[in-house]
């Protein structure tokens, strides 16, 4: 048994904060909110890691990053080596360092977290990846020897990019087919610039292309070519990572009034089409003065913070449960509050009100209270009788989730889907009901996280490699 009492007391170094833009300033620009660790801060933070013999953090990571390994290198000032160590297992470290929910993964298992605050794994990951990119010290590993087999990846989001990187390193000829005009999936259309600068995604995609991955944009599989046609063209396996791209609406009266967006549309206009720079960019977006965002997830936080940056005077989250049940990351909620977002909790819209031009003017809402727990284990919100009131709004963003896009399943005979339209995978390998067809990410799990989609890509890469080695 350890005897903690007789150990000499070391001065405790606190978890290092990342410098951030001042909320009053950042709420009027789209630049990234945290500016990242300096070399000194990174080394100070890295030295907090006690290099456990049996590191819990790795078990919390969906892609098994050697966390103590890369942190140890940062502590020694070997930043480029740290980045290379990360890239050994994680194709997109600059992205993951920013958008992974570390508090539920690696950092949750950090031993330091038991008594104090865990090592800031995400911030260190971001630092190492940024250091490598910004200093131009990115090295391209030599091309793997070709195994003479072709794999088609459908969708250039986190899952598709990950599997493409893994398979190209194993010597496969990999082509990603992306429906939109730019690769990145949710990283480019969904997550705003102030949380994930698009230049970073471009650099990661560029790196994959340098590894030998081919990317065909504007290629809607199911329309331009079917999965069967991909096989006919000579692909030996297909990985479907098309995401859960279809928006969910609540089907309440007035939801099609002008000024009401799905979060997908609002964010796609702003992020992918750069409507926040209209008219320099051609795609317009409504710059509402009173904006209401329905929902309590990360996408809702992204939407409401975008609304503020587009010039909203009031930007309000309308969520039917309480802050405790909100699915958004604590950090996102915290940032939103700092920036002046208002929260109407235990509130649910029942109808949208419009003017004679067909433009939304407000939401008729009900107050809710929490009742018995539902299947998700969260207490179910129930309406309070006679509690209706109106929230004035000229712009509304509906962010209550997404569902499966049916284009690929509908055009792929024999591909089993469940009752919600998600593709059924036999197990973690992503193997579907069709031989040689694998699937992963949101199209299998429903809306989840970037890192889980990447984890699925990693596992499917192993499965496809095994399948193609065998056949």
């Amino acid at each position, binding site marked *: 048994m350890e005897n903690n009492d007789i150990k000499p007391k070391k001065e405790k170094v606190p978890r290092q904060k990342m410098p951030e833009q001042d909320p009053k300033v950042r709420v009027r620009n789209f630049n990234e909110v945290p500016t990242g660790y300096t070399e000194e801060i990174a080394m100070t933070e890295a030295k907090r890691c006690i290099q456990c013999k049996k590191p819990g953090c790795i078990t919390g990571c969906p892609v098994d990053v050697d966390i103590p390994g890369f942190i140890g290198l940062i502590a020694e000032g070997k930043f480029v080596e740290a980045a290379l160590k990360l890239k050994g297992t994680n194709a997109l470290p600059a992205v993951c360092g920013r958008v992974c929910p570390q508090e539920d993964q690696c950092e949750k298992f950090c031993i330091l977290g038991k008594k104090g605050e865990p090592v800031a794994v995400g911030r260190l990951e971001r630092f190492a990846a940024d250091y490598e990119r910004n200093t131009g010290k990115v090295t391209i590993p030599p091309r793997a020897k070709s195994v003479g087999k072709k794999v088609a990846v459908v969708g250039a989001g986190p899952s598709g990019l990950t599997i493409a990187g893994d398979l190209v390193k194993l010597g496969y000829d990999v082509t990603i087919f992306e429906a939109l005009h730019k690769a990145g999936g949710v990283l480019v259309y969904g997550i705003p610039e102030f949380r994930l600068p698009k230049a970073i995604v471009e650099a990661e995609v560029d790196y994959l292309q340098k590894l030998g991955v081919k990317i065909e944009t504007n290629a809607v599989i199911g329309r331009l070519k079917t999965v069967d046609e991909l096989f006919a063209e000579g692909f030996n396996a297909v990985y479907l990572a098309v995401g859960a791209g279809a928006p969910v609406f609540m089907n309440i009266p007035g939801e*099609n009034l002008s000024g009401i967006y799905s979060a997908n549309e609002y964010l796609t206009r702003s992020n992918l089409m750069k409507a926040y720079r209209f008219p320099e960019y051609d795609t317009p977006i409504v710059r509402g003065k009173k904006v209401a965002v329905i929902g309590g997830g990360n996408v809702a936080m992204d939407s409401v913070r975008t609304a503020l940056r587009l010039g909203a005077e009031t930007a309000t989250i309308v969520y039917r449960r309480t802050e405790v049940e909100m699915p958004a990351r604590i950090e996102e909620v915290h940032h939103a509050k700092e920036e002046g977002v208002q929260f109407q909790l235990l509130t649910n819209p029942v109808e949208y009100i419009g003017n004679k031009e*067909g433009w939304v003017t407000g939401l008729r809402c009900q107050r809710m209270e929490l009742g018995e727990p539902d299947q998700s284990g969260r207490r179910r919100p129930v309406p309070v009788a006679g509690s209706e009131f109106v929230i004035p709004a000229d712009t509304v963003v509906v962010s209550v989730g997404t569902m499966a896009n049916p284009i690929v399943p509908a055009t792929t005979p024999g591909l089993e889907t469940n009752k919600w339209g998600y593709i059924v995978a036999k197990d973690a390998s992503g193997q579907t009901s069709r031989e040689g067809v694998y699937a992963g990410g949101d199209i299998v799990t429903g809306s989840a996280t970037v890192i889980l989609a990447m984890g699925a890509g990693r596992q499917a890469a192993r499965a496809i490699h095994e399948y193609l080695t065998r056949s």
Partner: protein
Amino acid sequence: MNRIIVKKDLSENVVQMVLEAPAIARKRKAGQFVILKMDEKGERIPLTIVDSDAEAGTLTIIFQVVGKSTAALAKMKAGQSLSDLQGPLGNPTEIENYGRVVCIGGGVGVGVVYPLAAALKKAGNHVTSIIGARCKSLLILEEEMKKVSDKLVVTTDDGSYGFHGFVSAVLQQMIDAGEKIDRVFAIGPVPMMRVLCNVTRPHGIKTIVSLNAIMVDATGMCGACRVSVAGETKFTCVDGPEFDGHAVDFDLLASRLRMYLDQEKQSMEAYRCQCHGK
């Protein structure tokens, strides 16, 4: 890729382009559309595929200059390339031998109804086409429509050519004369489609319209193009673009099409200043 092979002005503000797009040309069916994007900063613009040639690997599109994006597109020349071209999108027209069909196109909508008329004719239908424009100089595709129709009626609002009046008056006359009509395909400005649906509704003549809702991704991801059909919300891009006209809420479509009028003006003004500055 996406090279403009031929560019032709069909009227003072309507332009036809033949684009190099072999993969899309192979797959495309009547009624489908493409999204095109001119350059890095451009909008994603949905346009119906008017015609295609699988052997030559080309597509034909027709568009009207209505705002900044289409004005800039109209300035592009043969030999230049669009940055992006995505398709074929949307559901193809349900082509069958219905018997006697009437294909109606108004303004630039003639370009949209042309491939339907051609496919319907090929499927054995008796095709009567009615095409209209504000005046003679704005009329497009008369010769092409003649080739794919058993009968062609041309109308102009000002009487400068053909029948003096709206396309709906011609359809009304056909109905009043007791002509047998099994199905109508009506494509043009929202007010025109609304009126045509009102003409056919009392007679129970199935009327298919093709809607031009505002779109962004056009693959069912954003919902910008939602319309109400028989009281249900549908996405024009993946559920359409063609719907039963008698069930479409045209008021909603018209009001949603006005959503960006202010921004469109702003964009056009900025573009004009820029052009004059050069």
